[in-house]
């Protein structure tokens, strides 16, 4: 066990995957000499060479599209998209190509690529640097989307994503890159089932569901609630596509009250699918409607007002109050 920031944990996970399998490659803008704008690939080019840690031209479709081709050649490319807001030029390659290859070819051709995508707000930056685009990807059969909330999870998920035979987007909560430190087991399994949610706090009265950067907010809310005499269970989804419904539904049935939180806007967000499914599956168990605490229904705002946009502990508590009042 070592103490690592989330950034260093991802670096370590990447390095381990590259070490263990020389088919693993990295490609992206500025990931070579610069080590990426967040320094996630820091030192990897020196260690594994420029052929395996490739600075790419400034073209997101190019990065993902060539990664698909390299995967068809037997490589396991890990793409870095520089910021959340810049993934859209690659959209066709992700949605229409990588995610469907297995289906359209009845398993003849697959695209086991990984797309690392820093996301999330409250980072005090300019436009397109604080967004949460996950809802644009979740409607896609064939695409896995995972996101860690701790350095240990980040270390595991990046390796498991690389080991996965499916295309995987790893949403990296950039706010936590350098701010969150935690214990990491460097011998943790490098492969395994990617769609396992985790109950990170047990409780009985209300279930708080979130992922990535929201998990610590939910845990903090749960602590406040505990002080106030309420018992909240917190579920870290870890995989937002597919969702681990068994874990989610079990918690919902247990507590009868569910709050889902994410930074992306409410409309058609991940919370919508969670609420829709939970109310369908746990109808009689619910004491209150599933409530959503989300980014506002507007594009990500200028950073000086972003704390009013990103769900806060207070807003979670407000929703819990509402749920408990039913």
């Amino acid at each position: 066990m070592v103490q690592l920031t989330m950034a260093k944990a991802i670096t370590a996970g990447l390095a381990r995957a590259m070490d263990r399998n020389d088919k693993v490659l990295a490609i992206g803008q500025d990931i070579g000499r610069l080590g990426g704008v967040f320094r996630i690939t820091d030192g990897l080019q020196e260690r594994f060479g420029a052929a395996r840690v490739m600075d790419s031209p400034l073209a997101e479709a190019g990065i993902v599209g060539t990664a698909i081709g390299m995967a068809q050649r037997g490589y396991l490319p890990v793409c870095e998209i520089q910021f959340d807001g810049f993934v859209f030029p690659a959209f066709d390659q992700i949605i229409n190509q990588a995610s469907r290859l297995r289906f359209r070819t009845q398993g003849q051709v697959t695209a086991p690529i990984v797309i690392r995508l820093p996301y999330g707000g409250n980072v005090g930056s300019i436009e397109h640097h604080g967004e949460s685009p996950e809802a644009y990807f979740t409607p896609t059969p064939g695409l896995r989307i995972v996101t860690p909330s701790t350095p240990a999870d980040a270390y595991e998920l990046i390796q498991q994503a690389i080991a996965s035979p499916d295309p995987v987007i790893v949403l990296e909560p950039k706010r936590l890159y350098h701010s969150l430190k935690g214990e990491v087991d460097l011998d943790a399994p490098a492969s395994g089932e990617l769609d396992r949610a985790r109950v990170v706090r047990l409780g009985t009265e209300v279930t708080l569901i979130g992922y990535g950067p929201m998990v610590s907010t939910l845990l903090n809310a749960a602590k406040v609630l505990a002080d106030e005499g309420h018992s909240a269970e917190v579920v870290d989804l870890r995989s937002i596509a597919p969702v681990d419904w068994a874990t989610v539904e079990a918690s919902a049935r247990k507590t009868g009250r569910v709050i889902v939180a994410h930074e992306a806007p409410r409309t058609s967000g991940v919370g919508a699918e969670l609420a829709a499914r939970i109310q369908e599956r746990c109808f009689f168990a619910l004491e209150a409607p599933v409530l959503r605490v989300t980014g506002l229904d507007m594009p990500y705002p200028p950073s000086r007002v972003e704390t009013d946009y990103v769900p806060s502990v207070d807003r979670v508590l407000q929703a819990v109050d509402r749920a408990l009042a039913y």
Partner: protein
Amino acid sequence: MTAPNAWTPRIVGPDNQGPDVPTADVPTADGPTLDVLTPDVATSEVPTPDEQADGIETVQLLDAEAHPQRHATYSPQLSVDEVRHAYATMFLARRLDTEGTNLQRQGQLALWAPAKGQEAAQIGAIAALRPTDMVYPSYRELAMVMHRGLDPLAVFQIMRGITHATWDVEAHRFGVFAFVVGAQTLQAVGYGMGITLDGADEVVLVCLGDGATSEGHVSEALNFAAVYKAPVIFLVQNNQYAISVPTAQQFRGAPAARAGGFGMPGVRVDGNDLFAVHAVVAEAVSRARAGEGPTLVEAMTYRIGAHTTADDPTRYRSREEEDVWGARDPLVRTERWLREHGTEDGFFADLAAEGDALATDLRARVLALEPQGITDLYEYVLAEPSAALAEEREQVTAYLAGLEGR
């Protein structure tokens, strides 16, 4: 798929040649010179389509009358026997292409995208590859499919709505059809980057149309290929149209010119001239194998038929124009050359009979095609179905069984 009459391919390529007969007696230059090339003689008052206004040379080794043309850089590389093999594939592909249109007209296919007229571009190019080289087709490469020994039924399966795009890519080194125009070019470049990483002695041929060159993904592919010196040949079959849009409205810089701007050679070739396409692609393949990176080959050809059976070309082009290009039919030209080089009637008669038998067999097999049940398709969404998928599959299975019970 192992029906008795299934298609047996004729592989024509450097690593799998026919008997060692002398190559065609087309005069060859001893090396690059600045000679002006023999111009193509127009067969009509309408300017021939390859008299392009942009001043880019069109490599031609056999003119529309099947007369050999001297070229400073390129010379024919195919033996009479190889040409016979190539012609046979071209001929049979056209026969099946016609069958595709017929089947669609009879309501047996959802759609058919005729390749008539583009056979020389396709076979000339693929014949310059080794069977181990990879091909990324677009969606019109029936002749290439047959060249690589794939059962052409696979294409009919797609067009009947039985499958999306399914065949054994690894066995045939032939990628699946791509329906999102241009997207496959980036994947082909990535594959080529993989070849370089492997240090393998292979190349990639990727097919695209004149219209496809407008897609941003294609420009990105050209750039990535150049930057990473990927061993990729971009074969642009410039058939003069993207559905109804003629090249004059598609671009002002032709594909062959585009290439230079991305730092790779661009060569324009008469796409209805089997010898020229083969020679130009062979040269590009050599460059790629030698580690000199990508080349773009613009094969000037013509889609004699409609864009697809859903299309109506009378809306956007004239009969006159069709006639000009019709006179440049690559099958006619190649047949003429073969006849002039000692190929007898019997060869052509046999081929026609073989084509009819193939078509009859294929038609029967097409009509017998049945899709996989929808619930089987859950297999292919993820490597392992998620719990939710497995559950949905059960529900759908039960639901469909219930329907049948009614």
